[in-house]
């Protein structure tokens, strides 16, 4: 008797299949690795897909220059442990080149990642970018294909997506365009944490509860850092928090939590009443369709 497969086994097998389709169909792919929990899962999936061989792609990180140092250190260490090539391209350099212009010096650089990403695609001639986006994250992402076609400008056209049937993924694109592949499209936040627990994956420390100076802003906790000081009239407190997602410091909020182990995080995730983005994104609150607009411009 061969043991029945669990939901997590099936999600894993599908994700490995998708990664290998990229390897089989694309000439020059790259895997976006930020050090965040979703891309940590992608790396484990890539190990299962390609070991004992090397990954058939480099890792790529678009650094806004406004990331938590723990996360950047983790990113570099993880890439080195795996012995895989890590390419880092910085929004800072795009600003220096003049391709990114900030309206204000303290403007969030999050959105501008799209420009730096496009420049990296041109520089290396990537024809596929693998990302850790999930459909349960946001209502525009819920609409996206596993293999999603982008034009020369990196744009997504949500009204004109390709049919995608069965397990027959089509990664071919006309010259100048590229495809984005999302192996964990069908995973939920809970699936990701369960996978991290099952595989014993290491994460940056800020995913676990720690005391951190914050202010309360628009119903969320905004971390107080050199980059993001408290504003006039705000009171700084130091609650126990953890991050549900890590991203640019200026737009990612932690949540109040005492969960210091994966098991505790799993319990909280199963019982949560607020979505991952709703609890953590300081930038999505502004407009109903912020994510769709960013995606149309080439954002991940």
């Amino acid at each position, binding site marked *: 008797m061969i043991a029945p497969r669990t939901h997590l086994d099936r999600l894993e097998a599908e994700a490995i299949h998708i990664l290998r389709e990229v390897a089989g169909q694309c000439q020059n792919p790259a895997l976006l690795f930020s050090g965040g929990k979703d891309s940590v899962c992608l790396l484990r999936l890539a190990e299962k*897909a390609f070991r004992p061989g*090397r990954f058939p792609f480099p890792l790529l990180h678009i650094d806004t220059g406004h990331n938590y140092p723990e996360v950047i250190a983790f990113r570099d260490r993880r890439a080195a442990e795996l012995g895989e090539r890590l390419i880092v391209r910085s929004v800072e350099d795009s600003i220096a080149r003049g391709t990114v212009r900030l309206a204000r010096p303290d403007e969030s650089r999050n959105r501008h990642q799209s420009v730096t990403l496009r420049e990296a695609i041109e520089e290396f001639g990537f024809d596929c970018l693998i990302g850790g986006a999930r459909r349960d994250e946001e209502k525009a992402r819920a609409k996206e294909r596993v293999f999603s076609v982008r034009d020369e400008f990196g744009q997504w056209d949500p*009204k004109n997506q390709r049919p995608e049937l*069965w397990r027959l993924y089509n990664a071919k694109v006309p010259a100048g365009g590229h495809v984005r592949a999302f192996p964990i499209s069908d995973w939920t936040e809970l699936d990701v944490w369960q996978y991290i627990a099952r595989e014993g994956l290491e994460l940056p420390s800020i995913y676990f509860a720690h005391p951190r100076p914050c202010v309360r802003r628009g119903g969320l906790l905004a971390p107080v850092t050199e980059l993001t000081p408290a504003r006039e009239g705000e009171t700084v407190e130091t609650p126990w928090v953890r991050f549900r997602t890590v991203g640019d410091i200026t737009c990612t909020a932690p949540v109040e939590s005492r969960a210091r182990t994966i098991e505790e995080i799993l319990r909280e995730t199963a019982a949560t009443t607020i979505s991952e983005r709703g609890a953590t994104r300081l930038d999505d609150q502004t407009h109903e*369709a912020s994510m769709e607009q960013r995606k149309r411009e080439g954002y991940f």
Partner: protein
Amino acid sequence: MDTVLRFLTCGSVDDGKSTLIGRLLYDSRALLVDTLEGIERTSRRRGATAPDLSLVTDGLIAEREQGITIDVAYRYFRSGARTFIIADAPGHEQYTRNMVTAASTAQLAVLLVDVRQGLTAQTRRHALLADLVGIPALAIAVNKMDLVDYDPAAFEAVVYAFEDFAEASGLRARRHYIPMSALLGDMVVERGEHLPWYLGPTLLEVLERTPVEDGARDEPFRFPVQWVCRPRESTDPLLHDYRGLAGQVAAGTLAVGEEIAVLPSGRRSTVTSIEVGGVPREHAVAGDSVMIRLADDLDVGRGDLLVRADESAPTLARSIEADLVWLDPAPLAPRRTYLLRHTTREVQARIEAIEWNLDVATLERVPAHELAMNDIARVRVKLAQPIAADRYEALRDTGSFLLLDPATWDTVAAGMIRGAR
């Protein structure tokens, strides 16, 4: 044991598919607070008093502006021991290809019918497409019962009409009929108070009880090779000669020591190891993504198929008969060469003959020389190189294919193999 059910909602435009998914999630308490607040905010801004539950899945700007669904939205929820992967498909005819996308992986279709409208051409088309791709269960949700005073006769009229249609078209799916109001929540998760004459299960009960099969374990072994692992640059002498065939088992089971054949070449060898990420295991079963090593150094690459030497083999075909759904706005050009994608294999293909085109309204099989978007046709396809084909109803992965347009690389048609030579 946890099970997963993938289902889609389909049916004519405005029959209430998105509202139904919203209702299902809302009444199952599967909507998170901030999602719900967002929906309430948007609904209020538009002057509605109650939250518009179709906004749960209609997430694109254009969808919200026009009040229609354009592309499939995926949602996930758990109820009891079951995980649901929901695909909310559009009803609009222009977006039929997006419905086909959702249908191709679904194990159940919820087909909505507006009780006042009865069966429309689009209801029929979606039912036929669901059947064509082999969805084994159909839940026919007779919706908007609130608009006909929950009249049982109105419900029955739809049931009879659909059964007539099902018989005439030879639909194979198991069928459940459920009267409901997606808007008010009758018979979705709660029974409500308006339908005392209906004694069958609610929609959620149907979803929870529908049996799901675990892949195609009992079928003959099929393994399309996706990628070959050759860590050549390694100085480790063991790895130096390593040659792993990476792929996902499409059907059946395989154990170390068994004899396999490589198709189309027909060469044979013995399985020396099965691994995942370098870790050995004894078996691989349908659905597993593994790496397989063979005793002999055969010429095997992406596009080849491994089968077991002791099991029935697929047909090495240069000509196939298939049901084809044309998905592209540009019609089929019979003299053009398309790229046919079957498992991981790609071959040049030409439509040799269109045997018939299905008239969805009359179910008549009419002769045709051209196919336009959304057409469902029986065709004969000629291939430049052989593919290892099974019939779609026997084995899905080796029985299906896509046609790609070499000018755009777009996916222009989906095919289900009915015969191979």
